């Protein structure tokens, strides 16, 4: 059994906690949340030991690993403390508000040989995993261009006062929404390193951007376009999609449907020349416990398996999330030039 604690039982935290609670190889030894109502409910109705102060929790329980799902501005200091204590860490996305902080944490986790993972769950979705396979095994040839898009109804009217409207707290469409797209493309194509131009547009918010449009380029000179807008009420929930054009074919994929075009008959088993459609239902790996989507269980399971040494710690590492943070910083610097 791996002993796990969780800091921050908000929307993502409570979902991680439920998945951890159902995991056969995990013993949840403590949960910390500063909200009285959250810790009260957990204390009263769940079997978990709850704390209002994570420092106290860390003194009293001795987890091997900790899930950190607190507001982004607290990631750096809390993760730092946990690594100092020698804990394996799973932290929610985005990784850090400041690139310098991320650099320190990435180094520290490596030096101490601790398992580290960031919650970019798209990499655990069946369709995107298949895109990764098709691209990396060269089935669509040399990639020359990509687009990455995400739309959803987060801010669909004028409002203020939440962390989402505070750039100091990781609010804004770039940190919260575009980070997913950037991180996914870094993984599917290759790390994006250059920003040729970016527009960060407010739509309803006064203090942060609600849309991000950018022209970018990867380290191996593949061009791409990012179009991300969280003030899109025509979507029921967040919808992330990519299209990747190569010399031998083209891929269009979202979380549920993968469309691939092959220019000739030289394509992988199960596909043929021309257009092919695959659905997530046939690409999804079963999970033992389902909540909100297979990918959420799969990423938690992967982290636990990495601690057990059953899989390599090479998916959603601090290192890969840091590359995403770096591009976010570049887009901020490039904005509206």
């Amino acid at each position, binding site marked *: 059994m791996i002993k796990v604690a969780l800091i921050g039982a908000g929307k993502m935290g409570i979902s991680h906690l*439920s998945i951890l609670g159902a995991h056969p190889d995990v013993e949840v030894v403590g949960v910390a949340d500063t909200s*009285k109502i959250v810790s009260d409910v957990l204390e009263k*109705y*769940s079997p978990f030991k709850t704390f209002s102060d994570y420092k106290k929790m860390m003194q009293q329980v001795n987890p091997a690993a900790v899930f950190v799902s607190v507001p982004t501005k607290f990631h750096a200091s809390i993760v730092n403390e946990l690594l100092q204590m020698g804990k394996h860490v799973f932290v929610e996305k985005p990784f850090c508000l400041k690139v310098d902080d991320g650099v320190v944490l990435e180094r520290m986790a490596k030096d101490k040989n601790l398992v580290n993972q960031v919650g970019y769950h798209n990499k655990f979705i069946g369709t995107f995993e298949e895109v990764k396979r098709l691209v990396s095994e060269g089935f669509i040839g040399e990639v020359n261009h990509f687009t990455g898009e995400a739309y959803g*109804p987060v801010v669909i009217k004028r409002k203020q006062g939440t962390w989402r409207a505070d750039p100091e707290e990781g609010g804004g469409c770039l940190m919260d929404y575009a980070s997913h797209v950037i991180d996914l493309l870094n993984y599917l194509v290759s790390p994006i390193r250059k920003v040729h131009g970016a527009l960060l547009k407010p739509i309803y918010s006064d203090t942060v951007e609600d849309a991000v449009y950018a022209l970018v380029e990867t380290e191996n000179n593949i061009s791409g376009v990012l179009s991300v807008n969280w003030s899109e009420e025509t979507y*029921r929930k967040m919808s992330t999609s990519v299209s990747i054009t190569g010399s031998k074919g083209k891929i269009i994929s979202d979380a*549920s*449907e993968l469309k691939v075009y092959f220019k000739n008959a030289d394509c992988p088993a199960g596909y043929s020349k021309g257009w092919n459609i695959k659905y997530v239902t046939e690409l999804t790996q079963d999970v033992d416990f*389902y909540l909100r989507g297979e990918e959420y269980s799969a990423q938690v399971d992967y982290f636990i398996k990495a601690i057990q040494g059953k899989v390599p710690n090479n998916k959603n590492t601090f290192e890969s999330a840091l590359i995403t943070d770096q591009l976010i910083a570049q887009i901020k610097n490039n904005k509206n030039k």
Partner: protein
Amino acid sequence: MERILFGDNQFFAVNHISDEKSRAQSIKFKEDKTILDTIDIAREAGVETFMCTTHDRIINICEMVRAQPDKYKQFSIYPCMPYAHKYANAVTELGILGTIKQYVPGNFFGSIFKGGMAMVSKDYISIMELLIDAEMKMFKKINTPVIFLQNVITDLLLGLDMKDILKAFHDYVKKKYDAEPAFITMNMPKLLDVLECAGIENPIICSSINKAGFRMSGGMAVYEETLRTRKLRAIAMQVLGGGAIPAREAIEYVCSLPNVESILFGASSRQNISQTVSLIHEFDKKYSNSGMVSA
């Protein structure tokens, strides 16, 4: 319960395999009247039960149903609550306390707040009961013999091992609404264990059951074993595996299983509705194991 239940995903642009199809659906069902017309087509095919989320648009559907009591005499609705997106968005916007304040009706919240947090902390179950009442308001005077807890909440509570809350939902639905409490889940075998542990016997559980094994967490074998050997009133949903299985094959599989009391399906066209209904009848005859009277 009726053998065949008509679902609502198609009306609210919930399609598990295609965003494009979702968009086409939301265009098709833009008017509430179109939704009711489609429900009527299902009724003509003998399916008199509509199982639906407590989506805001159901308020209008219920009003139209109430306006024609004779036409909808046989009709019943199985509400599934809560409509999770509504609360998730509210929590993001207003926080947990703000959300409770927004959705708990009347002055109850103000009055307990005067008593301070200590008072609140003792009364979470009452808050849940008030939220159930708020969700049930739209179904006034409509026959709702079975009331479901949605899978996001059921499964969240399941993972958190909050048996008492599942039990409290169960007890309140029975007591206040004189209805059968029921649970939707993506983790049927696990949920059954926990419900039994909480003292709930022979529960109504609606879960994915399909030939592709799609969303049958823990694997098909455990599900089939549970149906064969345990005591529960199972409803099969996602029987087409999100569209991955041809209809005929899909329905034959579900009809051949023991102990599946009802089958839930959704469809938008007359042709798909009547095809699915007649396939269920056909394979029920072949396996005649449900013991239920088909509609």
